[in-house]
């Protein structure tokens, strides 16, 4: 059992200076709990001008994790004019957002997507399989345009997604387990 000084959150409010949290915690720090440990298998590192993206992958990951992250990270190596039309380098924030999204939304058995750089320096993920076309374009790091076409039923939809990811997760579920 440990006693620790409770940490103050990042100073965000004017009245934060008027109080202090109750000074002790009585649970073991999560960093000392075996069950909370992340035992990394490897760290994937993707440098870019002025920074680096680091993704730490544990031993067991779904089969799409490493190849998809490798493809996304590889986009950061593209130089300005990579498409011979003067397109900018790929913005690392888009790459980071795409990594976060696939880890949050994809299922263990989701097929590996195609990773496509866009001429605006962004990222698009695409699936064209089993009669289904799913394209996810990052309009900004936090704003997605999801295009869905089911060639079996003729169903087509296009929607912008910010916080409600249900259209995307439903599409991914269908992609993983087509009826």
């Amino acid at each position, binding site marked *: 059992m440990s006693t620790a000084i409770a940490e103050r959150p990042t100073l965000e409010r*004017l009245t934060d200076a008027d109080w202090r949290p*109750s000074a002790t915690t009585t649970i073991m720090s999560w960093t000392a709990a075996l069950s909370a440990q992340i035992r990394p298998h490897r760290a994937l590192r993707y440098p870019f001008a002025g920074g680096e993206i680091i993704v730490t992958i544990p031993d067991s990951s779904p089969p799409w994790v490493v190849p998809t992250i490798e493809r996304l990270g590889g986009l950061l190596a593209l130089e300005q004019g990579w498409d011979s039309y003067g397109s900018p380098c790929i913005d690392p924030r888009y790459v980071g957002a795409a990594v976060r999204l696939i880890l949050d*939304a994809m299922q263990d058995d989701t097929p590996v997507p195609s990773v496509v750089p866009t001429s605006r320096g962004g990222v698009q993920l695409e699936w064209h399989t089993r009669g289904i076309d799913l394209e996810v374009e990052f309009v*900004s790091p936090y704003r997605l345009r999801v295009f869905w076409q089911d060639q079996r039923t003729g169903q087509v939809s296009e929607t912008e997604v910010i*916080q409600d990811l249900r259209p995307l*997760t439903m599409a991914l579920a269908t992609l993983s387990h087509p009826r």
Partner: protein
Amino acid sequence: MADTQRILPDFTNPPVVEVALSLQFDPIKNLRTPQIGLLWNEFKKDFPQTEEHPPLEPVFERFGVAPKPGRPNVQLQILEAPPIPRCWFLNSAETELIQVQPDRFIHNWRKRQGDEDYPRYETLRKTLQMELERFQSFVDRENLGTLSPNQCEVTYVNHIMLPEGNHHGHLNRILAPVSLQSTDTFLSETEEAKVALRYVITNEAGSPIGRLHVVAEPAFRIRDGQPMYVLTLTARGGPSGSSIEDALQFMDIGREWVVRGFAAVTTIEMHRTWGRKT
């Protein structure tokens, strides 16, 4: 503008000490430290003091992403050098604050000591609207990018001094959903309790548009060491469109959830203490 005049719970002496209205938007890539310095000129007359703080991480209320049992944890770090700070513009009395970073604009107001009146929401909203319009004009004039709101936050911070003879184990005297009852008699009285609750905010169609977070944290007042609870209610969610007016409309919804939520989670006993009027 939404109907902000609907009758909401009202108190003669509410424990609110601070209100913050926050707009989060897609990062404005060219809004870097020098440009934030230029922006200060727009507000310098009323906010003559500055401070720099670490930037806040973007926060989203996500729906449709369920935790995946067995999914390995993956850590992702994006290291950028140098990070752009969150700049504070403070008024002389240090009762009002504008916080700016490439993806946030926040206005905080705090109650002055001994002043029982706090700015009413309608006043704060109007001020924020003028500031956001000024900010948008600046972004347009300097060709910095586009202001595209993606999340809005309404936060009310309440300092609740514990009733006479009570301590941090008596949170059930303040919050109605907390019973602090044990199944048997093994445990003695609770020494301390802290609580975090969250509720889904829905629109008229029943679709989720955000969440109300209620956090009660045991604390001590710095000036006299008195035990207290810091009860923070934050309503966060996405605006229905990408205009400032759309963002303000979510703020109206968020404010209503905070005010109604505050009355709903606090006890009748505390309502009497604060003089509930409606």
